[in-house]
């Protein structure tokens, strides 16, 4: 039988998919995320990112490795598919629209920032990305998970907000203060696997 702790450990780490065509930037963002206790997968293009998620129409779900992605951080300027185009594809897919997407760009252009936010990006980070930027993004993800996605910007997402409220309303009050919770301030994914849900599932397993 699986020990509750083991089940929780694998579900409590945020898995981040980082997309950037620059080797240097991929290595830096990978390190920034690992230091922030995240699992990281880096890919060099939007096309590869879609393949990894299993959204590539041509290859079906061959690229999908089974690990749920909790956050996508993508560079804006990439050859082929830009980060903006990737963002749109993700937000327009029913399977992956819930995944928060953060855009990174070396250019601080207001119209660019606006269009990304309009399209549903959580945040727009100006490069070079620092540890404090990554930590802030992580905190926003945690808050988002615990409050069931209250921080949504767009009106048409209200439907999903209602769904989230229903499934994670029990998690919004007790996690930080519960003395018996084995999880420190662990991040949770937006919809179904909040720490409280994981705890419940683990307990059920133990009873078998």
């Amino acid at each position, binding site marked *: 039988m699986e020990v509750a702790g083991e089940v929780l450990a694998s579900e409590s780490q945020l898995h981040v998919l980082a997309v950037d*065509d*620059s*080797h*240097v*930037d991929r*290595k*830096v963002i990978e*390190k*920034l995320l690992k*230091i922030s206790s995240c699992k990281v997968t880096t890919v060099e293009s939007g096309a590869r990112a879609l393949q990894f998620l299993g959204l590539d129409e041509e290859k079906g779900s061959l690229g999908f490795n089974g690990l749920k992605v909790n956050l996508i951080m993508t560079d804006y*300027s990439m*050859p082929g598919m830009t980060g903006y185009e990737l963002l749109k594809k993700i937000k327009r897919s029913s399977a992956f629209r819930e995944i928060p997407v953060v855009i990174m760009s*070396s250019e601080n252009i207001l119209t660019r920032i606006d269009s990304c936010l309009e399209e549903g990006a959580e945040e727009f980070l100006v*490069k*070079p990305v*620092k*540890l404090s930027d990554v930590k802030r993004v992580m905190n926003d993800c945690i808050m988002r998970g615990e409050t069931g996605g209250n921080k949504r910007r767009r009106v048409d997402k209200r439907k999903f907000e209602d769904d989230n409220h229903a499934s994670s309303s029990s998690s919004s009050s007790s996690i930080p203060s519960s003395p018996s919770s084995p999880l420190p301030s662990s991040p949770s994914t937006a919809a179904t696997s909040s720490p409280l849900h994981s705890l419940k599932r683990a307990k059920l397993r133990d009873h078998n």
Partner: protein
Amino acid sequence: MDRNRLRNQVASMRRSLFDQGYLDDQFIQLEELQDDTNPNFVEEIVTLFYNDSARLIQNIEQALNSSPIDFCKLDDYMHQFKGSSSSIGAKKVTNECTAFREYCNAENAEGSFQQVKQEYAILKRKLEVYLQTVRQASQTA
């Protein structure tokens, strides 16, 4: 005795790299990411930067040598070069890249790029010496 001397050398080289504007805060970010699990992180990133830069410089020179010059492609390469310079905190190189992109036109493209190349070469030399000294200092018992 030897170790102290090396450590002092490292400290003063590092200080001067920052004082003279070759490196900026982003380099410190990289240093702070280095730890026991990844003790050569800075050197690894810098090496990646050298590799990327060598490739980009070659591409840029090729673009400059073609006629007519494809300014779109050129700008693309310069954007990448500027991006990675900025990511490792190479302040002067980043600034030269910015200047090149702003003032680059058919007449002065080649000349301006020589300045970028020069600045890059200076930084590479200084960083190589610095990181070698860092390595020596950490290896000395």
